[in-house]
């Protein structure tokens, strides 16, 4: 599934990394706990989270996650966008609850990590 399809499915807005929205995503992981994200080995993963702070971007950087969806109408900061750009990440803002967003993506065929 392409990043742009993910954004369409959950009526979300791309706020960083517009040029990379044709990149392929293999699976999704939803968590507000960054230590759980740091245990993953998957590649081409989308992280779905309701936590919007600098540590989410740093976690994604260390875990090689290139696409983050922020749910529950959370907004990213300029500083987050700056570091995300340096690391070629796509950031997506979504108004849906975590449950709603994940449900729609799962129904559309996005695979879980485990």
């Amino acid at each position: 599934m392409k990043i742009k399809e993910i954004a369409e499915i959950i009526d979300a807005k791309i706020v960083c990394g517009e040029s990379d929205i044709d990149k392929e995503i293999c699976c999704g992981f939803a968590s507000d706990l960054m230590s759980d994200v740091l245990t993953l080995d998957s590649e081409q993963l989308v992280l779905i989270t309701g936590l919007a702070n600098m540590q989410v971007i740093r976690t994604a950087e260390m875990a090689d996650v290139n696409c983050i969806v922020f749910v529950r109408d959370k907004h990213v900061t300029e500083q987050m966008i700056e570091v995300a750009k340096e690391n070629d990440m796509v950031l997506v803002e979504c108004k849906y609850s975590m449950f709603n967003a994940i449900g729609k993506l799962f129904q559309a065929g996005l695979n879980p990590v485990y």
Partner: protein
Amino acid sequence: MDFNYEVEGGNFAKAGYAASNVKKVLKQLNVDPKVIKRVVVALYEGEVNVVAHAYKGNIRVDIDTERIIIEIKDEGPGIPDIDLAMQVGYSTASAMVREMGFGAGMGLPNMKRNADSLNISSTVGKGTVVELTTYLQK
């Protein structure tokens, strides 16, 4: 090759700076991406630990052609029971740390999982030293 980083206790805005920097260096050195990920995940968890628990800390990274040694030294409350601290789910983190997406008792276990060796020594009331070694080739 030696690198030194200062870490400020309580400053979450800067947590990850050292790990980010080391990641860039290892990429430039063409280290296997899988090894890079293990090193930087362990270092990042260690950095977050210092920010979350200590007053201040220092990270020294020593890289040669065979291995990477990371020493994370802090001035802080220390760890009274290291075996307990190594258990998944055991945490003494504050509400603020939990709001940052950490503090679930996974930091040290995550570090152990991602390093070839992990040594911890700690003095209560003084601080903690964590040494991580990762070999570049298995």
